[in-house]
């Protein structure tokens, strides 16, 4: 269970470029929930994920995962419990290392890294088995540098790596946004099957309303660093794409609601 309590984060405070990226975000995600985060650009979705992953410490607030306080833990210390896939398909793998070496790193995610050989015969068999499931013809290319693969293949491998040892929380930040439509569909399907099979608690950012509606148990909408909508349970089930569009629309309209509108309504809504 992920618990976020009143998270605040301001970038470049006190300057002209000050950005209040998180303004008191509180959120509890039950174990096994697939939560999707949507919101316009710059609404703070990535910042929220980064805060949970530990890329920076929040200015205020608490992050707890399964009851354990992560707030002050550096990113690499959280990795044992949090799997992560980035938007950039090149961000999640080490390009110049082979597929096998990358996977070996993931098999020991967050564990002690000993002075034993990383690529044992046993490990390679395991890798080949798991990779075969991707049906991307990669099982015979274990020793190729991962940089020679396509973005879609790398993203699929990153996903595999993020979930190789079952994480308490899976963070996906628009991980299909930079892919061509076919690869994106493939990675989406893979995401769904892994999350379902492992019953992972997942927090995914997406721009695709379709994905948000189809994949999630819960849709959370962010705006200006705050959660403005939270559709869950039976409310989530009745949500369709037009409802989400309408919600975005209302947000945009709310932006146009200024003091002058308030005055207008005083004379025109009596």
């Amino acid at each position: 269970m992920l618990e976020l309590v009143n998270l605040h984060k301001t970038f470049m405070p006190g300057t002209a470029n000050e950005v209040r990226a998180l303004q008191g975000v509180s959120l509890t995600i039950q174990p096994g929930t697939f939560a999707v985060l949507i919101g316009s650009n710059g609404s703070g979705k990535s910042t929220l994920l980064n805060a949970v992953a530990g890329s920076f410490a929040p200015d205020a607030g608490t992050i707890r995962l399964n009851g354990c306080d992560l707030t002050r833990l550096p990113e690499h210390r959280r990795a044992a419990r949090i799997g992560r896939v980035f938007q950039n398909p090149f961000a999640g793998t080490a390009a110049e290392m082979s597929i096998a070496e990358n996977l070996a790193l993931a098999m020991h995610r967050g564990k002690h890294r000993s002075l034993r050989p990383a690529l044992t015969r046993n490990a390679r068999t395991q890798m080949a088995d798991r990779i075969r499931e991707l049906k991307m013809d990669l099982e015979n290319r274990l020793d190729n540098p991962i940089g020679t693969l396509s973005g879609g293949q790398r993203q699929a491998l990153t996903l595999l790596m993020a979930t190789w040892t079952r994480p308490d929380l899976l963070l996906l930040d628009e991980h299909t946004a930079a892919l061509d439509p076919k690869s994106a569909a493939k990675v989406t399907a893979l995401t769904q099957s892994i999350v379902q099979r492992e019953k992972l608690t997942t927090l995914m950012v997406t721009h695709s309303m379709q994905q948000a509606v189809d994949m999630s148990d819960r849709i959370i909408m962010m705006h200006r660093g705050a959660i403005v909508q939270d559709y869950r349970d039976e409310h989530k089930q009745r949500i369709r794409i037009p409802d989400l569009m309408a919600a975005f629309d209302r947000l945009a309209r709310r932006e146009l609601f200024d003091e002058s509108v308030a005055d207008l309504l005083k004379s025109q809504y009596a």
Partner: protein
Amino acid sequence: MSLVLGAFTMGLILSLLSLGTLISFRMIRFTDITVDGSITLGASVAAVCIMRGWNPWAATGLAMLAGACAGAVTGLLHTRFRIQELLSGILVMTALYSINLRIMGRSNIPLMNSASISSGTEKLLNRSGNPFEKWNLAGWEVPLPDIANLACAAVVCLIVAFLLTRFLRTHFGTGLRAAGNNPQMARAQGINPETMIILSLALANGLVALSGALLAQYQGFADVQMGIGMMVWGLASIIIGEALISRVGIGLTICGTILGTILFRLLIAIALRWGLQPNDLKLVTAFFVFAALVLPHGLAALKKRTHRGERHA
């Protein structure tokens, strides 16, 4: 023949420096200038210890440790105090200049008649008891000390290369390489890239200092100036090695680097033989590295242009 032998020995010794540079430049991707100071540090520590009558091997080990400390300091300056890579290297290198002078007490220590790590080998190989014994190698008369030096350098180099290869293939070593290749990914896999930078720089500069210690014993002196430009030599060797063996893979990269260093030394020996001024050596090396860094891009652009031309035709 002794020229070739010398170049080989020199190449083997300096290949340790190249391996150190390989770790900092290519593995953890840290532009580490400490090298210029830590090679001298290795030389001076070894020289002083040997002069005091230490076992040469122990002296060499201590030199290596000193180098590792210097590297770790650079790493700490960068990671803990957020000083830029280059600047942290320069700071440590500058500090090392004074430290080296302090260690040696003067700017130069000759080691002409002192023991060295090859002394034992020499004794072992010497059957006649004649200190000026020469061996006949393929028709050439070669002094025994040269052969002993070569053998020792080769053994040390082989051991280091073997251990390094093994190390980089362990869980820890893969983590280290990942930290250099993609720090963000490394963090996501639970690796702290900052620790890895400190450890890598310690390892790299340890190797560099080892190289310095061997160099001092081989050349017969330690000099406070001897480190200048060493980093560029290491870089040049790596580049030649990559040209020789372009395949990726840890073992091959390490072999390539060693071969590259030896080839580089041979080229220098030949150039010197042909009348190149030793004083111009660094200029030539710098120019070579420049060309090696720039040419691939130029070539690629050229290739692209001709390709396009073909398609148009």
